[in-house]
């Protein structure tokens, strides 16, 4: 399979997507909705590249275009730059303050104030819904369609299945999701609206709240393995380390106490 990317032949395996090949060969393609660990969804469209087919070229989204045979790809042409510039300007009208867009705007000379801003704090990349399906408890979903599409919980209610993993918070490219740990509860807040509330685990030693209390069954099912012991801890990581250190120290001194009676004074 011969793949030519921006005039140079690059190494590629059959079935790899264009973006994978580009990343592996150090070719830059901008993406907003792409995370290698998740199924590509081609939602943001900024990764669009030109695929040369004979004398014609075709625009394809590189994140979900698997290469099956010889191909020539152009990742940075005047048309693509213009295309990306307008896309960023349009996305910026939904999310005027997003850092990710500001960076791209600088690169492509986009005017972030070209279209009137309507702050919806979301670029509809769907990453939160995809990661929630894979990692979390299937809380967030893309509801509705067209201009009315939005991220929401089912029936718009607080979700009982949330495990409070905060993957959605981590993955959101425009920081529209946040968690608040308060009064022994973790709240996941999507664009200002509370999506779920998870009880937090209280450390039996020092009393601080440290991790969500979750229904382990589905999590272990997804992980495909029987034991993730950290989930059942009743003391927080800090106390756990402290008590381990204490135990080690005690054992150390006990041994030394037997071997040499004056070890205590040295220690």
């Amino acid at each position, binding site marked *: 399979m011969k793949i030519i990317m921006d005039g140079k032949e690059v190494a590629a395996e059959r079935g790899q997507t264009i973006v994978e090949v580009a990343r592996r060969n150090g070719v830059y393609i901008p993406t907003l909705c792409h995370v290698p660990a998740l199924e590509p969804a081609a939602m943001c469209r900024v990764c669009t590249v030109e695929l040369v087919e004979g004398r014609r070229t075709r625009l394809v989204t590189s994140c979900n275009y698997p290469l099956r045979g010889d191909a020539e790809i152009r990742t940075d042409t005047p048309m693509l730059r213009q295309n990306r510039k307008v896309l960023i300007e349009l996305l910026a009208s939904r999310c005027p303050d997003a850092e990710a867009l500001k960076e791209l705007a600088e690169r492509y000379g986009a005017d972030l104030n070209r279209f009137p801003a309507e702050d919806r704090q979301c670029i509809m990349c769907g990453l939160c*819904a995809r990661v*929630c*399906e894979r990692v979390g408890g*299937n*809380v*967030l*979903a*893309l*509801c*509705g*369609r067209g201009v009315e599409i939005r991220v929401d*919980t*089912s*029936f718009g209610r607080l979700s009982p299945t949330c495990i409070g993993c905060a993957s959605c918070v981590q993955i959101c490219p425009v920081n529209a999701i946040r968690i608040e740990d308060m009064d022994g509860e973790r709240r996941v807040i999507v664009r200002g609206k509370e999506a779920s509330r998870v009880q937090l685990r209280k450390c039996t030693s020092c009393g601080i709240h440290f991790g969500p209390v979750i229904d382990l069954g589905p999590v272990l099912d997804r992980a495909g393995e029987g034991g993730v012991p950290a989930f059942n801890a009743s003391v927080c990581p800090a106390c756990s380390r402290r008590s381990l250190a204490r135990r080690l120290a005690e054992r150390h001194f006990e041994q030394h106490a037997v071997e040499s009676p004056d070890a205590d004074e040295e220690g």
Partner: protein
Amino acid sequence: MPESEATCCQEPEVDFVVLDRIIRDEFGGRREAMIMMMQTIQRRYRYLPEPALYYLSQVLGVPITKIYEVATFYASFSLVPKGKHLLHVCTGTACHLKGSGGMVRHVAAKLGIAPGATTPDMKFTLETVNCLGACAVSPVVVFDDKYYPQATVGQLNEFIEKVNAE
């Protein structure tokens, strides 16, 4: 069934035996048939009751969020109860030119509801559709699943009177 003050609509009791018949017997409990199951459920209750969707999710092993996505994606699914009689008025380009906008306004004013809404007595739901694919015979309305080509305001009045006479 108790009348609730907060919601104007009486929610029908969901019969899980009926749901089982739809999900398991009619479609063999196959996930691929989920949309058809939802259509059948909607035909029975005139909307998708929430308990029915949760039950469907349990039986099929499909997360409720996925079912909710589907239910909100397709315009033909409704999550709020519909009236006993459904009137769809096409507002596609051809029908619009033939005055369907005025027809919608007429019915809305006569029933005192907005397009997409249901009368408080749960008898009548007025909906607009983008195109019914019958532009040659515009304006088209669909009343209780029956198509009426070249509809007139007089015809719509007849429908409303028929419903009110019940």
